[in-house]
């Protein structure tokens, strides 16, 4: 089943096209990482999923229901954490959680466990809490009612490393419980760690949707070689998927796209002193897509 189905959605604000013909599908039970810099259209997409914005064209559906015309029913299925958290300053944490919990069925034991997990004092006024503690309140509110779909916008911003770890464990727990997570983040390491699939958005367009493994495979990796004597690089540069990026007397740096089989064969007869060929991380993948687009434009 498809948890999120965004089809040909566009949304403009005045003359600015925030989302342009966006197509995106997230399957049930999947953790989907939604990546992009500020202004790429991530929050606009999320706000359309919540029925806060109406698409100019196209349709957004969550668990089979239209996000605009049936937003009431859609919201009952969603646990939501906004990126920009503004909690009512005079309410206590208890007030906030009780109010939000009153609209949906929830297990008091789960709420208690979440409060303990995040080590939160819910008796204090929200206005007196630090940004990190306000973030914890909002995280608990999103997770407490066991919604089948969780939409989390920058979930770990403001959390300390210990709480971030706690949060990642919670995500893992939710994955095992079969829930769908739509995770928008700048923190690529975190997304890389948990996401089954990643979507990269730029200028309102989805430029890639792949598994992290597939993205790694598609993107350029850096091969750095130190030779013990001046090498003949011609067998390497003849390969279609290998690009010479830098060269000094005994050292060369290549970009390698796709499987490195040909590279390994070409290197077999060379006198190599040192060799490094790290896997592409999500950050380099992300930068790859942005660099490619920048070059194109």
């Amino acid at each position, binding site marked *: 089943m498809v948890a999120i189905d965004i089809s040909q959605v566009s949304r403009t604000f005045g003359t600015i096209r925030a989302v342009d013909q966006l197509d995106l599908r997230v399957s049930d039970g999947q953790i989907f990482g939604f990546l992009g810099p500020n202004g790429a259209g991530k929050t606009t997409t999320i706000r359309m999923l*919540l029925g806060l914005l*109406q698409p100019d064209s196209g349709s957004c559906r969550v668990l089979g229901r239209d996000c605009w015309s049936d937003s009431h029913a859609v919201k009952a299925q969603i646990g939501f954490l906004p990126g*920009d958290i*503004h*909690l*009512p300053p005079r309410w206590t944490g208890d007030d906030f959680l009780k*109010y939000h919990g009153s609209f949906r069925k929830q297990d008091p034991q789960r709420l208690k466990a979440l409060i303990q997990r995040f080590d939160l004092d819910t008796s204090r006024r929200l206005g007196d809490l630090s940004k990190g503690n306000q973030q914890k309140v909002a995280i608990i509110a999103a997770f407490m009612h066991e919604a089948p779909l969780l939409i989390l916008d920058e979930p770990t911003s403001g959390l300390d490393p210990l709480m971030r770890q706690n949060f990642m464990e919670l995500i893992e727990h939710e994955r095992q419980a079969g829930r769908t997570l739509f995770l928008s983040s700048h923190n690529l390491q975190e997304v890389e760690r948990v996401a089954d699939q990643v979507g990269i958005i730029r200028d309102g367009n989805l430029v890639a949707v792949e598994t992290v493994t597939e993205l790694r495979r598609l993107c350029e990796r850096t091969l750095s070689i130190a030779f013990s004597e001046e090498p003949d690089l011609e067998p390497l540069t003849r390969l279609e998927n290998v690009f010479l990026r830098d060269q000094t007397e005994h050292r060369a740096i290549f970009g390698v796209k796709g499987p490195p089989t040909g590279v390994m064969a070409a290197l077999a007869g060379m006198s190599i002193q040192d060799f490094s060929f790290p896997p592409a991380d999500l950050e380099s993948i992300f930068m790859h897509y942005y660099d490619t687009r920048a070059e194109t434009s």
Partner: protein
Amino acid sequence: MIRVFKRTFRDLRRRTIGFGIFGFLYGLMVCSLYPAAQKNAETIQELMDGYGEGFKKLFGGDDFSTLPGYINGEFFSLVFPILITVCIVPAMAGIVAGEVRTRAIDISLSIPVNRKQFLLGRILAVVAMMGVVCLSTTLSLELGSILFDERLPLSHILLTAFVLFSFGLVLIGISAIATSTLSSRGPVNAVGAGFLVVSYLLWVVVNLKPEASGLKCLTIFTAFSPRDALKSGELVPIELLTLLGCFVLSATASIICFTRRKTL
């Protein structure tokens, strides 16, 4: 909707208590000054007679010799409309427009209620707040009239509270349209206060310039006559229906605007 109403009303409790106490004390103060005014009623009336009929009617100065007339002139003709505007309009500005500005609306609307229920719950909370303020204000008049030996019947007091309440409803309706369509508090406050000022200015013009009497249908002050309720316990049905009709129409319009609003 009930939960939204209860929560919003709870959030408005400080404002309710504050304005309730202010209205109560101001009502008592007006009553306490009445004996002194009564002693000098002739002098005051002579002074007032020096002004034109329109001016006297405008400031409720055509009947300072009775307690209802005195209260009308000193309280209902200008201070109460200002009090209720200061009480209501910022509260209405905060229930949607203020939250849109800060994006707090994202969390407020993440609960599974539709926009109609959400806005209606919040408008009704402000209506309830205003009801408490009107009631405490008019009950102070009852207490004041007992303390200063000019007892006003409780039925007259309650009818007066209803007239004041109906007047406040119109302001709530106008502010509801503003808050459901605008995206920050300032413009909503400006619309609410502007509506009162323009209405009052039109009322001034209508009273001072007989040839402009056609404008009276454009100001809510035409349909606002709490003195009659306080003095004789009579309600003017057409006036009340006009005020209540304005509220129903404007509140409905605000809900339609909010549910159709493409961007929050």
